[in-house]
């Protein structure tokens, strides 16, 4: 019951935020230089087309009416028609979404696999050489732009050694795993650098906590202490951090998709920008915002289900 109330409260809080998100997107598109109808329909549009678009968007109406139209259209799932794809923006988004979602989840999985063991080694050897080496390597990783990591991996592992395909998405789950390994690994290298720092200090903090010292004093084996206490607590903070970094992660995915020619939302966004496909840009921007806030919500729920203290506040 308490959880349901909490979800409802969170969802209610999301309404004003999303109104503002819509305002920002609305303003972005309205501030476009020139005639929005012309921008949406393209240079070769007929006068009748332009008039129809003006009418649909209510461009002759005052600004607040225009915003209302935009809002109601969006809520009804009408994001307009893409100039580039010549189909409904919503259809294009749903067609590309699985690829980006797959890549993002894959990248998160890999980054936990990379950062987790490394953080444990670093934390258990605090201040000694393995700690220093691991922290230095990941610090350098954090200074590398994602597109550069991607390009280097693409050159050596895909183009030279031919271990991996140079692009594409493949057919079927296993093929997706294979095709997206390098893109996911690229994003994961960056993401794991973010997690590692946090995970290491979280582990150290738990190791120093009184209840862990008590567990040790009770004579519990190391395996139980690490597994039950340290891992569980470190996991909460890592998931929270990952959830909150979803924006960064998506930014990374966007660039990576471009480097590896993965047909996802990020690459589509860039194509839309170069084609000046404003309905698509608008729709994609909104999609990204929805995805991020969904992840924020899930993170919150996960955190409150694992950490009872969260539910009280």
């Amino acid at each position, binding site marked *: 019951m308490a959880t349901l109330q909490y979800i409802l409260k969170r969802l209610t809080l999301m309404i004003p935020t999303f109104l503002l998100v819509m305002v*920002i997107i609305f303003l*972005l598109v309205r501030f476009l230089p020139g005639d929005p109808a012309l921008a949406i329909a393209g240079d070769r549009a007929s006068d009748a087309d332009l008039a129809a678009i003006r009418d649909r968007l209510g461009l002759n109406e005052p600004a607040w009416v225009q915003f209302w139209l935009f809002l109601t259209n969006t809520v009804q799932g009408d994001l307009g028609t893409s100039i580039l794809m010549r189909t409904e923006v919503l259809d294009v988004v749903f067609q590309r979404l699985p690829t980006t979602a797959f890549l993002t989840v894959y990248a998160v999985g890999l980054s936990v696999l990379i950062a987790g063991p490394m953080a444990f080694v670093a934390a258990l050897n605090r201040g000694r050489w393995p700690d220093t080496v691991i922290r230095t390597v990941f*610090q350098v990783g954090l200074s590398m732009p994602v597109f*550069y990591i991607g*390009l280097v991996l693409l050159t050596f592992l895909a183009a030279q050694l031919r271990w991996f395909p140079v692009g594409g998405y493949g057919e079927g789950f296993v093929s997706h795993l294979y095709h997206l390994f390098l893109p996911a690994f690229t994003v994961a290298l960056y993401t794991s650098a973010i997690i590692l720092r946090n995970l290491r*200090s979280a582990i150290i903090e738990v190791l120093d906590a009184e209840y862990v010292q008590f567990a040790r004093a009770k004579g519990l084996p190391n395996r139980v202490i690490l597994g039950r206490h340290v891992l569980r607590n470190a996991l909460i903070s890592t998931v929270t951090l990952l959830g909150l970094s979803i924006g960064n992660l998506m930014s990374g995915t*966007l660039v990576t998709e471009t480097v590896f020619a993965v047909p996802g939302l990020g690459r589509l966004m860039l194509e839309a920008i170069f084609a000046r496909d404003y309905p698509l840009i608008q729709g994609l921007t909104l999609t*990204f915002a929805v995805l991020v806030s969904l992840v924020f919500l899930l993170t919150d729920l996960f955190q409150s289900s694992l950490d009872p203290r969260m539910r009280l506040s």
Partner: protein
Amino acid sequence: MSDTAVSSSAPSRPSRLQLALGKPGFLIGCLIIALSTLLALMPNVFAPYDPNYIDYLAIRQPPSWAHPFGTDSLGRDSFSRVIHAYRVNMQMAILATVFALVIGVVVGALVGYYRGIADMIFGRVVDAIITFPFLVLVIAVVAVLGPGLINMYIAITMVGWVYYARLMRAEIIAQMGNDYSDAGMVMGYSDRRIIFRHLLPNAITPVLIYWMTDMALAILLGSSLGYLGLGAQPPQAEWGVLIAEGRNFITTAWWLSLMPGIAIVLTGLGFSLIGDGLADLLRPRG
């Protein structure tokens, strides 16, 4: 976290300068950034050629004594182009962050001090902007304004100020809990004096530390946008642009893309090492 615990339990307190000199990471960071600044200020002294000089007789040459990083597809000297790019990329670290810093500090200080409706609206704006992935919003703004360096700075500032303001607000509120803030009020000082002369100097440290990290991020972001064709435009020598230019020849002339990338990594590392060092040094102790 653990580092503070260790340093606060130490019996004697060495000066901050001593601490700084004892941190190799911080020193290396300062050295990298000092050298980078030097290259940015006078690239002509270090670059052997004009970065835009086209020599059709020396196209895509591998690294040699005459051309340490080789030449590109127009016969331009890659080394000179990487050196000249220091000016643009170091400029990015400043210009993509400094306006966001100033706006963020002022807005954050004001809403933190006065709270009320302005603070509530501010909270919603922060929530809304954070809901967009940073790059998506920046790219969308660049799409509206058009590609180019100036528009890129505007776009990054429009999104980036929020992060400074959020940090500043929290710090100001924390500082207001201290007695000296109440003392200022009791003495009848003006709000402006309390905010900018008393609270701000005490609250700004975390913001300045974040600024250093943000400079590293600005270089990464700026070169990413350059690579994607949305930031600096060719033939401007900029690291992201250089990497993009070399991309098509990456299997035959790998040095074209590899070298500018190393410059990005080094500079980014320099800023983040300084940021980490400052965080350790300036964090309140005791």
